């Protein structure tokens, strides 16, 4: 089989090549193609903004502004980084800037502002017998809602690291650069965020959040 056919048969490579082509064309001046370029990432951009701002309206404003800034500065994008990483980085910068502006008006709780990672280790609280949670459970809106609520309870510094690393799938180095913190801080905060969420989800596990179906097959709910 020829190399060209192999490339054509690989959807991920196809998407990558298509994205490279779109980037080059937008950089050359075909600016009307920009939305097509960023559309696959609009959810991730919004999630990054929401993780930092914790308010849906602010997150949408920040996400839109970030997209416009990316649009204005698309010529500065170099292929050294992934386009998605660059876009999320622009979004994080925009959201952090907005939060700094908000802080001059609204005082955030003191415990949410601390940047000191030299704190006591977090010990897991629940040791229930965990099994793999079926991914189909995410089809249910109430499950997604519970997970979103659990994430929202985390302090800002843990939530930001967790979202960039585990939701946006940025690596440790990219997460550290995006948030302007050390790699050691990323690892410490990530561990704590994951353990805390695990405890929160363990409670839900016991309450049956993630059961495959709300009622057994063959039985009627009425």
């Amino acid at each position: 089989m020829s190399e060209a056919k192999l490339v054509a048969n690989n959807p991920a490579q196809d998407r990558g090549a298509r994205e490279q082509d779109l980037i080059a064309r937008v950089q050359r001046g075909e600016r009307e193609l920009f939305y097509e370029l960023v559309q696959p990432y609009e959810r991730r951009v919004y999630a990054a903004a929401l993780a930092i701002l914790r308010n849906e309206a602010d997150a949408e404003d920040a996400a839109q502004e970030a997209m416009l800034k990316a649009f204005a500065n698309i010529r500065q994008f170099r292929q050294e980084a992934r386009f998605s990483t660059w876009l999320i980085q622009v979004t994080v910068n925009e959201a952090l800037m907005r939060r700094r502006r908000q802080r001059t008006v609204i005082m955030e709780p003191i415990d949410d502002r601390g940047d000191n990672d030299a704190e006591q280790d977090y010990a897991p609280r629940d040791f229930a017998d965990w099994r793999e949670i079926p991914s189909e459970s995410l089809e249910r809106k109430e499950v997604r809602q519970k997970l979103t609520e659990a994430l929202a309870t985390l302090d800002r510094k843990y939530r930001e690291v967790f979202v960039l690393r585990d939701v946006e799938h940025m690596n440790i180095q990219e997460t550290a650069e995006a948030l302007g913190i050390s790699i050691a801080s990323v690892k410490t905060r990530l561990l704590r965020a994951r353990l805390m969420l695990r405890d929160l989800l363990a409670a839900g596990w016991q309450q049956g959040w993630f059961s495959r179906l709300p009622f057994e097959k063959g039985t009627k709910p009425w």
Partner: protein
Amino acid sequence: MVDRDTINRDTTNGDAVNCEQVWREISNYLDGEVDGALRSAMEEHFKICTRCTSVLEGVRNVTLLYGDERMLEVPAGFGLRLEKSLEKKLAQDARQNERRWSPWSAWLVPLAALALVTAGVQMASSVAPNRVMRAPMAQAGQGIPPDLVVLVATGTKVFHVAGCTFIHNKETLRSTTAKEAIAEGYVPCLRCMRKYLDVAAIRRAEAAGEMEADADDEEVRVTAH
């Protein structure tokens, strides 16, 4: 289930790790950020510790659930609003580009007009350099003897010889030489100075004829050679 104290006691031998150490490194373990020795020690620990296995499975579930694309929800109409704002920005940029060009276009029209006028003037001057005034009244009076006594009157532009019937403002008449009258800006009277003006015309014609003859002679000489 293995007792936790038992596990902690186990850590006293060799490369074994205790539960606290496992919890501290469990995130790095999942990310592949621990070295080989620690990884092996942790894997050994998971075999005998149900608590740490529970923690490991729980953290793995967390990363799998939150890393799922379905968790990325956006408000209804988000994409549409984003597309609209990008379209608006495109239109705004286009308007700004037009405005950026407008000062140039505003200057280009008068600059072009100025260039055309300048070019026209230069062309006109190059076509007719040192044009000779042909009207007799415009002649400075060539052929008139410079020491000829002539009459000039204040408020007129013409000088005459005595007895000319076309003298105006006779009460202000004064006599002077033709040379001085010409220097003061007076021109010869067409009637009384006709003789001199005709002489001047004949002389100009003769001079022009001589020049043509000289040119012909020169041509003949060149041909002869």
